[in-house]
């Protein structure tokens, strides 16, 4: 074991100064290219991210000592970067290749976004202005299932299926249907 020897690692000064200088220079380059060298498409974004990655690598290798350290630390960094890249890339594979039924459109700008404070029953509550998809209206005296059955009888088709629409969640139809904010509830009978 090396616990008694007097040899310790002292961070060399030269590479650190070099790193500092290159970080400053690269920051300036990022700003200049982004602001004054318009590239086609996402060119500027990509360039800026490449420069940022170079900067990040410099910090990790020199300032953070990865270059001088045990390899296992580098492996840790690599695997978490693997995670980050995967997360972003595969998510974009989905979002970037969607053929939307109705293209996503931004609403008109209003203070408070879709959410508005309104007074209801003497209390201030947030009203979301129907930002979200339709929900079953379970009229008093009818269960959700009844409503769905009726809808199906009426059209001769399946009951509306939340899964068919991209912008809606398939998560929780039952819960959705019972949202107190949107639905009148039948007071259940005592059994």
């Amino acid at each position: 074991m090396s616990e008694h020897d007097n040899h310790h690692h002292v961070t060399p000064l030269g590479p650190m100064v070099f790193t500092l200088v290159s970080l400053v220079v690269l920051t300036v380059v990022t700003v200049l290219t982004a602001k004054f060298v318009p590239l086609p498409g996402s060119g500027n974004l990509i360039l800026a991210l490449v420069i940022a990655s170079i900067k990040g690598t410099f910090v990790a290798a020199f300032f953070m000592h990865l270059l001088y350290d045990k390899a296992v630390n580098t492996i840790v960094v690599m695997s978490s970067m693997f995670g980050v890249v995967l997360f972003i890339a595969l998510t974009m594979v989905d979002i970037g290749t969607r053929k939307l039924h109705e293209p996503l459109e931004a609403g008109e700008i209003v203070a408070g976004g879709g959410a508005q404070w309104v007074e209801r029953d003497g209390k201030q509550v947030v009203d979301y202005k129907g930002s979200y998809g339709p929900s079953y209206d379970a009229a008093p005296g009818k269960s959700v299932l009844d409503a769905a059955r009726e809808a199906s009888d009426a059209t001769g088709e399946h009951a509306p299926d939340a899964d068919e629409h991209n912008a809606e969640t398939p998560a929780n139809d039952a819960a959705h249907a019972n949202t107190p904010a949107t639905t009148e509830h039948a007071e259940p009978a005592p059994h």
Partner: protein
Amino acid sequence: MTSVSVETTNTAEPHETYVHQHHWRNADDEKDAAKLGMWLFLGTEALMFSGFFCAYAVFRMLYPDTWKQASDYYLDWRIGGFNTLVLVISSFTIVQAIRGAQLNKKMMIFWNLLATNICALTFLVVKIGWEYIPKIRAGELPGAFFTYGHGPTGTTHDHLFLGIYWVATATHGLHVLIGVFVIGWCMIRTMKGQFGPKNYMFLENTGLYWHIVDVIWIFLFPMLYLV
């Protein structure tokens, strides 16, 4: 094999006394372990921030034009750029502080830590004084509190951009703030003479933390302020 629990004490340098915790076989193992643990923690930090990056990437891809408009309109690259330089410099000074420990120069540690903290505070003051407060005054806030009126895009993408801007920079700012306290704590420990060539693990880990805060900003800056 017996486990050595107390290192030999060097009386000439009082801060060289270092007793490792009882469950380690030697101080080197303990040191490696602390560092590995820190790196794992930094990995989790990176993955945590990846949520913001992912959200950014998705909406930048979906709405490239309005996104750029909002960025140009709401954010001033000079403030972001200045703050980037400040953080880069602070990263360098904390490396110098660690060198100070390795070279056993107490005041070198102290002054460099002080410089680091001054940079950190500058970052926060600029961020809050020149960005956050004017934005709050103007109502350039996330959706529920947005009162700015008609933004540059004329659509709700303003909300979206500002939403991501606020949560990402505020989370990062919180990390800076935590860094200020930890570095302050390091300064106290320095003055107590607790750091030396054999015992600067805490300092080194603080440095690692500080660097990751820097690296995250290195990415946030161009993404939010520039492109």
